[in-house]
């Protein structure tokens, strides 16, 4: 009895000092962290990298800790340049944390060697399957999604919409292969056709002719950035009148204005939208518009969440204590703009994925949420991760 009392008192004291400790590190004792951001700021896919950067820097600015230094470099969407930049950041700049990569092929070129050299990598976008299962690593955290997630949600939506014969296409690179795999994992119907296109392809006349000639009842496509703009405009002009479903990447804020009316009414899946009703998201959307004069995109929300995750961990642990810092990251104790967010055993998100519809608000094309495709969804590769 007496022992129990002492134990309880001791734990109370321990708890108290632990809390004091947290408060203290959050204040003056927060250690400096040097972040190396490699992202795409020029060439074809620059809109995505710019949004990730702007979202990230907005969170850094809003937190105003004075302890985060960010070095930003442009990978030009080229794997060889990304590798060079990563070497420079690790060896001569001595960064503590790396982040920023948009494209899965670049992520595969950079992340495994960065994590093997003891750097923590926080992915604000790319989530190739190779890093989620057997290849998972204690230093790799994905703050966006595993590549398959949004496509799985699109497949789940296709079932609920009653589609029985989808035509599916994606570019031939890791994320494109993950996309079709993800869609097929949830989708229960038949396939009218399955195509891989070239990464960066702009002309889809040949693919559209095949869609027209097939007896598909719906089209699923994953074509991020400018590829999706081209596809949608040509799709609208081809006169093919099948419902289209896709992941948010081709229907996001950065490109909807360029697609125009061709996108109206299209259903797409996303873990985030500007109308998700929580305080963190409201603050984010307002601050982003005030800072940059445009609506934030999915990518901006991912950059913003990545920075806030980092800031939350900095409040709990010292970057030089790698184990404690990893544990603090794993807790994901930050207000995510997408609502509920937790890391699975493989350091990939467990989150809700919504169904959105493209609408027009005044002169601006944007999305509104019309339902939830998958709740508390975790990727399938997590089961193969020994972590």
């Amino acid at each position, binding site marked *: 009895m007496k022992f129990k009392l002492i134990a309880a008192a001791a734990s109370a004291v321990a708890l108290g000092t632990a809390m004091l400790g947290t408060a203290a590190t959050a204040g003056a004792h927060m250690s400096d962290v040097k972040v190396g951001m490699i992202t795409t700021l020029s060439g074809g896919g620059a809109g995505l990298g710019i949004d990730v950067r702007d979202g990230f820097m907005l969170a850094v600015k809003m937190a105003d800790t004075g302890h985060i230094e960010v070095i930003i470099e442009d990978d030009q969407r080229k794997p060889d340049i990304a590798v060079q930049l990563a070497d420079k950041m690790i060896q001569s700049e001595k960064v503590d944390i790396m982040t920023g990569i948009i494209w899965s092929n670049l992520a595969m070129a950079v992340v495994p060697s960065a994590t093997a050299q003891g750097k923590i990598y926080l992915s604000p976008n790319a989530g190739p399957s190779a890093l989620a299962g057997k290849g998972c690593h204690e230093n790799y955290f994905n703050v966006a999604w595993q590549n398959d997630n949004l496509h799985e949600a699109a497949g789940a939506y296709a079932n609920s919409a009653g589609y029985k014969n989808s035509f599916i296409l994606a570019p*031939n690179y890791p994320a494109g292969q993950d996309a079709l795999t993800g869609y097929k994992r949830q989708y229960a119907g038949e396939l009218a056709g399955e195509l891989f296109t070239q990464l960066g392809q702009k*002309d889809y*006349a040949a693919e559209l002719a095949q869609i027209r000639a097939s007896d598909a009842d719906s089209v699923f496509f994953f074509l991020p950035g*400018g590829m999706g703009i081209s596809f949608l*405009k040509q799709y609208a*002009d081809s006169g093919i009148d099948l419902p289209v479903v896709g992941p948010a990447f081709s229907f996001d804020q*950065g*490109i909807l204005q360029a697609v125009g009316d061709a996108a109206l009414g299209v259903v797409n899946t996303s873990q985030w939208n500007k109308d998700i009703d929580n305080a963190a998201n409201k603050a984010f959307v307002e601050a982003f518009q005030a800072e940059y004069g445009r609506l934030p995109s999915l990518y901006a929300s991912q950059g913003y969440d990545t920075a806030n995750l980092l800031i939350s961990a900095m409040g709990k642990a010292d970057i030089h204590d790698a184990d404690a810092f990893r544990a603090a990251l794993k807790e994901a104790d930050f207000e995510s703009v997408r609502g509920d967010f937790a890391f699975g055993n493989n350091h990939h998100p467990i989150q809700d994925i919504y169904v959105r519809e493209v609408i027009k608000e005044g002169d601006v094309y944007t999305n509104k949420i019309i339902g939830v495709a998958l709740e508390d969804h975790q990727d399938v590769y997590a089961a193969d991760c020994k972590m």
Partner: protein
Amino acid sequence: MTFVLFAEQVLNGLQLGVMLFLMASGLTLVFGVMGLINLAHGSLYMIGAFAAAVVAAATGSFLLALAASLAAAAAAGAIVEILVIRRLYARDHLDQVLATFALILIFSEGTRWIFGSFPLYLNVPDYLAGPITLPGGIQYPLYRLSLIAIGLTVAGMLYLMIARTRLGIQIRAGEADREMIAALGVDISRLYTIVFAIGAALAGLAGALVGTIQSVQVGMGEPVLILAFVVIVIGGIGSIKGALVGAILVGLTDTLGGVLLPRFFATFMENSSATSAGSALASMLIYLLMAAVLFLRPKGLFGDAA
């Protein structure tokens, strides 16, 4: 595969081919007449597309937008020729590659600085929107059919210009012996500026026409430029006829290869690996074509016609 689908794919290949011709003809003129490798040709394509997007947004007129693309690209071409290119004629090709590569970076970042990183909006005009039904029950977008017509018309006009006009004679003479025509009193530097501006205008027109159905954004010219180089290597450097034949060959090979190869592989392979193997091979196909042409005719199909 049905006849309708095949016919539609042939039209698609033809359409890609004539657009490549607009790019490649300017490139081959500049290379043939002035001996200059211009990597920044793709930037002129981008300038044409941006000019068209800006004018279309301001006036709502597609024809004005096309005129603007011609004017803007020609002007940009002339200015670049006078300020930069002129200093490069006497230097070797490596210097030219380096300098014109720098121009790509300058144009891309300049465009980003003015218009931002997000793509611009340029739409098909109402009177060319939607599909029409051709004989044989082929449904084909009217706009793409117009692209084929415009491209072939430009090819015809270019042929007439080179074969029948005074400027054409000067261009052909300049190709053969630049010292001699200079000695005969032709203002060679003015001739070069004009040739460069014509090549630029063709690229700009292609940018506006293709930008209408694709995305108008920074860096849009570079992938097309690579194909245009393949076209002039296949056709024979300096030959307009070669550029036309090469462009249509590349267009058809790229389109039909992309469609037929995955189907061919699917006859003896599991579907998803057939699609990836087929598309991988299809993307190599035009380079295989180029290698085969160079093996048989090292100067390209019409290489000796220069």
